[in-house]
Structures are given as structure tokens and as C-alpha cells.
């Protein structure tokens, strides 16, 4: 059974079909890349999986259970978490608080617990704190825990967002262009981080990225979208040599590099 499966998913906005009868299968434990031209519908796929949009038609299964139509917060609670293409951290909260909010669905204190103290609440609060620090450490931000997140440099904000998403202890992590706006060295660090997330935490990674070195470097399987349709799926090298992909996405320079290789 695939961990995540999209069957015949279509998403329309008014007259525009952003995702068109798309089938995708992600097996547990893979790093799966999704690429395609600007406006191909990649982010829309993420929004569909996380419940931000309801698909116009088709169905989505997670661990065999149908999840389309469920509210986003309960999908997250089931084990799917994400980052955003345009960073969406909680700007005027500290880095640590950002990650603590990520622990929301792994804890259960309600309004009454917060007012009436007890051993259970103290224990849970301690657990939240410890686990959150752990994830901050994982992305290398433990020394910045008290800094307001809006004052972090861009690259660190990206990593903070990843830590926050990891704090939900997801089965699958959706990363939307995590390396955008970074230089080579930072991109290499992100690639490392992605691999570590999969290898040490066992989290399946679903990755959207425009930087070929990053996607091709970490993904085991890559699918290519164009105008909402899947035009190709395979290993990185299969995808990179596919004529349709070159035509629609990679362009001549990629062809040049490929020839050079």
C-alpha cells in the first residue's frame, strides 16, 4: 500500500484547470520530487493534499484512508505536514514558540488544563519544550530559540519552517521550494537536511523545487507536471533525458549541460 496516493485528481479555479486528472503514488520512506514549469500546479497539489483546497474531482488516500474533504487541521493530525512556498512563519513569535506550535497536534492540553495546573500539564509542557528544542537543534537553530522569527535571516526562516513542520512528527513532509533564494552552499545544506530527515527520522519527503541540482541530487523518484498533467515520472536520470521534460521545463541550457555530461 502506498503511503500517499492521488487518484484522478482535478482542480479547477473558475475556468482554469490547475491540476488535471493527476495520479501520483508515494511509497513510504522515499524522497519524491515534483517539478514542472511555473504555474504547472505543483503548489496546488500540495494544497490539495493538505486539505487547503477540496479537489474538483478525484480522491486522495493517506495510509489507505481517504482524506480529501477533511479539514486541514485533521489531515495534519493524521501525519501530513508542510512548508510554504512563500514563508509563513509566525513572525512576531520566537523561533522556539514557532516550533512549539508545531507540537500542537502532538499534545492535548485544553483551555481548562491551561488554567488549572496539574502534574499532567506540567509534564506535557516539559515534553513540548524538549521536543521542540530537539527539532530546532536538528535544523541548527538551537542557539536562536529566543529570537523573534521575523528577525531571522531568510535562510534560517526556511529552516525554522521545516523544524516547525517536523514538530508534528509527520509521516510525510511536504517541502515547497525549500532552496529557493539560497546560494550554492546553503542549498547543499538543505540537501543534507532533507536526507537526514528521511534517514534519521524515517519521514517520507515530498519535494517541490526548481533547482535541478537539489531535486535530482536528493530524490529517488521525480514526477513532472505541465499544465496540471503528469508528463513524465521516473528516476532523476530518466526524467532529465525525457524530451518532453526538456521541451517544457529544462530548456536548451539543460540540454547543453546534458550533452556535456
Amino acid at each position, binding site marked *: 500500500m502506498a503511503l500517499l496516493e492521488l487518484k484522478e485528481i482535478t482542480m479547477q479555479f473558475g475556468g482554469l484547470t490547475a491540476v488535471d486528472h493527476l495520479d501520483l503514488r508515494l511509497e513510504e520512506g522515499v524522497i519524491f520530487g515534483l517539478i514542472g514549469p511555473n504555474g504547472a500546479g505543483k503548489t496546488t497539489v500540495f494544497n490539495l493534499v493538505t486539505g*487547503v483546497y477540496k479537489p474538483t474531482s478525484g480522491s486522495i488516500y493517506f495510509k489507505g484512508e481517504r482524506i480529501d474533504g477533511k479539514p486541514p487541521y485533521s489531515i495534519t493530525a493524521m501525519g501530513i505536514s508542510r512548508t510554504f512556498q512563500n514563508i*509563513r512563519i509566525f513572525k512576531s513569535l520566537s523561533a522556539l514558540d514557532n516550533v*512549539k*506550535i508545531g507540537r500542537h497536534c502532538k499534545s492535548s*492540553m485544553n483551555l481548562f488544563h491551561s488554567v488549572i495546573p496539574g502534574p499532567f500539564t506540567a509534564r*506535557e509542557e516539559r515534553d513540548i519544550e524538549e521536543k521542540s528544542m530537539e527539532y530546532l537543534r536538528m535544523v541548527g537553530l538551537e542557539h536562536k530559540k529566543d529570537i523573534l522569527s521575523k528577525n531571522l535571516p531568510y535562510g534560517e526562516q526556511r529552516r525554522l519552517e521545516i523544524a516547525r513542520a517536523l514538530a508534528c512528527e509527520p509521516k510525510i513532509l511536504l517541502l515547497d521550494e525549500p532552496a529557493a533564494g539560497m546560494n550554492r552552499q546553503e542549498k547543499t545544506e538543505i540537501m543534507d537536511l532533507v536526507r537526514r530527515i528521511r534517514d534519521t527520522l524515517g519521514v517520507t519527503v515530498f519535494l517541490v523545487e526548481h533547482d535541478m541540482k537539489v531535486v535530482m541530487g536528493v530524490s529517488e523518484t521525480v514526477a513532472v507536471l505541465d499544465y496540471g498533467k503528469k508528463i513524465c515520472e521516473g528516476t532523476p536520470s530518466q526524467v532529465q533525458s525525457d524530451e518532453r521534460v526538456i521541451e517544457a521545463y529544462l530548456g536548451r541550457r539543460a540540454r547543453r549541460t546534458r550533452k556535456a555530461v
Partner: protein
Amino acid sequence: MIDAYTIQILVVFGINAIMALGLNLITGVTGQLSLGHAGFMSVGAYTAAIMTLRLHTPYVLNLLAAGVVAGLSGVVLGFPTLRLYGDYLAIATLGFGEIVRVLFLNLEITGGGLGLSAIPSKTNLAVVYACLGITLYVMSKIQKSRVGRALMAIREDEVAAIAMGVNSTSLKVQAFAVGAFFAGISGGLYAHYLTYINPNDFGFMKSIDSLSMVVLGGMGSLPGVLLGAAVLTYAPEKLRFLQNYRMICYGAFLVFMMVFRPNGLLGGTDLRQLVKASFKGLNWGAMAKQGARTREGIGGSKDGIA
């Protein structure tokens, strides 16, 4: 020396502060602009008054009931309207406040436009400050808890909060319920203090007054809200020597305070910076730049013009 007049001001401050702290949870912490908070206060005030006048129930029970009934009305308002965002929510809450007022003006049991009089005078300084203490305790506990963080997350970015597993609708309703609960308590205290209530006492201006306290003090900051309530309770009294010019100066004072501290007296800064800022004097341009550089804020529905 504490004379009855001073005690009076202290009591009024306490009642205002409880109300503003309730609103702060809704607007300052959760980021939902509410312009109908006085509606909850009036629900509380009338609940307490009617219970004591008709059922002769004990004072403490009246207060509690005032909070509970107001809290329930918060849930009733919250469920349908919290789907609305930004200023659309604001106008719905404003509408709620007006609907409650008109209802109370027309109902038999509330005495209509005559209001309710001869409410036993029970509220005193000790009770008000006990309630204020409880309110502060509850609010500070909530803000530091899982629920409080989730509420702040909703304020900062609702979409991201939901993506983190936060059930924003349910939490917003909870915030409304708690905020309304304390507004209700403050209404109960008010009714038992002034001994006479009338629907017109809880109009839009009352809602605006408590919003001013929250914003002027610094949204989301408990000491800030207390300070805001203190300043806005005390200022009109302190300005009495101005006689005819009093309210004119009060208006100018509000503008001046906002310009001087665009993010509220204790908003987004620690006290050290505040002291530094006051040394610098009033440099309007520079002050403005100290504010957040972006113009998102609460209810940040930016709709442009068409």
C-alpha cells in the same frame, strides 16, 4: 489618602480592566477585531441584575451566571460569524452589539428603555480586585499554554496555523467564549456597583472604549492592557481641570498617545526601550519608523480598491 472618590476610580478601573482583558484575548491574542464587546458586557450586567431582582440569588452566583451567560452568547455569536475574516468579522460583531442593545431596549424582562434600577449595591473594591486577580491569572496561564500559543498562531497566520493542526474555528470560538465570559463578569460587577443599568450604557462607544484600552496599552500584553485601562480610566478624570476643553483634549490625547507609541504603550517592546523612547522626545517621523515596517496587522484583509 484614599477617599471615596479615589476608590471609585479604582473600582471603575478594575471593571474596565477585566473587560479589556477579555477583549484582549479576542483581539490582542487571537487577532479577531471585535467591535461589539460591550454587547457581552450588557448580557452579563442584565443577567446579574435580573437574577438578583427576580430570583434574589446571592451576589457571587449572579456574577458567575453573568460570566457564563455572556460566555454562551460568545459561542452563539462565534459559531456563525467566525468564518468571516478581517473587517467583515468586525462589522458582524458591531452588529451583534447593536442587536443585543435593541433587544434589551424592547424586552419586558430588561425593563426596556427604562432599564433596571434598585439593583443591590454589592460590588466593592475587594470584590473587583479579586475578580481582576482571577482574570489576570487565567489570562496569563492561557497565554503561556498550548491553547494560547495556538491562538497567537491564528493571529500571526491563520493558514499556517491550520496547517500545523490548529482547529482555528473551534479555538476562535473558545477565545470568544472566554473573552465574553470576562466581559460578562465585568458587566455583573458594573450592575451591582452602579445599581442602575440601561441598554444605552452598553452602546458602540463602550466597545470602542475597551478596544482603545487594548490597543493603547499594547495588544496581547497583559501589563499593557492594564496600563491602557488605567490611562484611559484616569485620563478623563485627571483632565477635569480643563473644564469645557476636557473632551477636546481627551480626543487630542488619544491621537497623541497613538502617534507617540504606535504599537501601544507596552506593545512589542520591553520597558527599557520605552524609557529610551521617552528620552528621545517626540520625534514623529522617527517614532513612525519604529513601528513595524510592514503594514500587516490584525484583520489584515487587504482588499485594495475597485
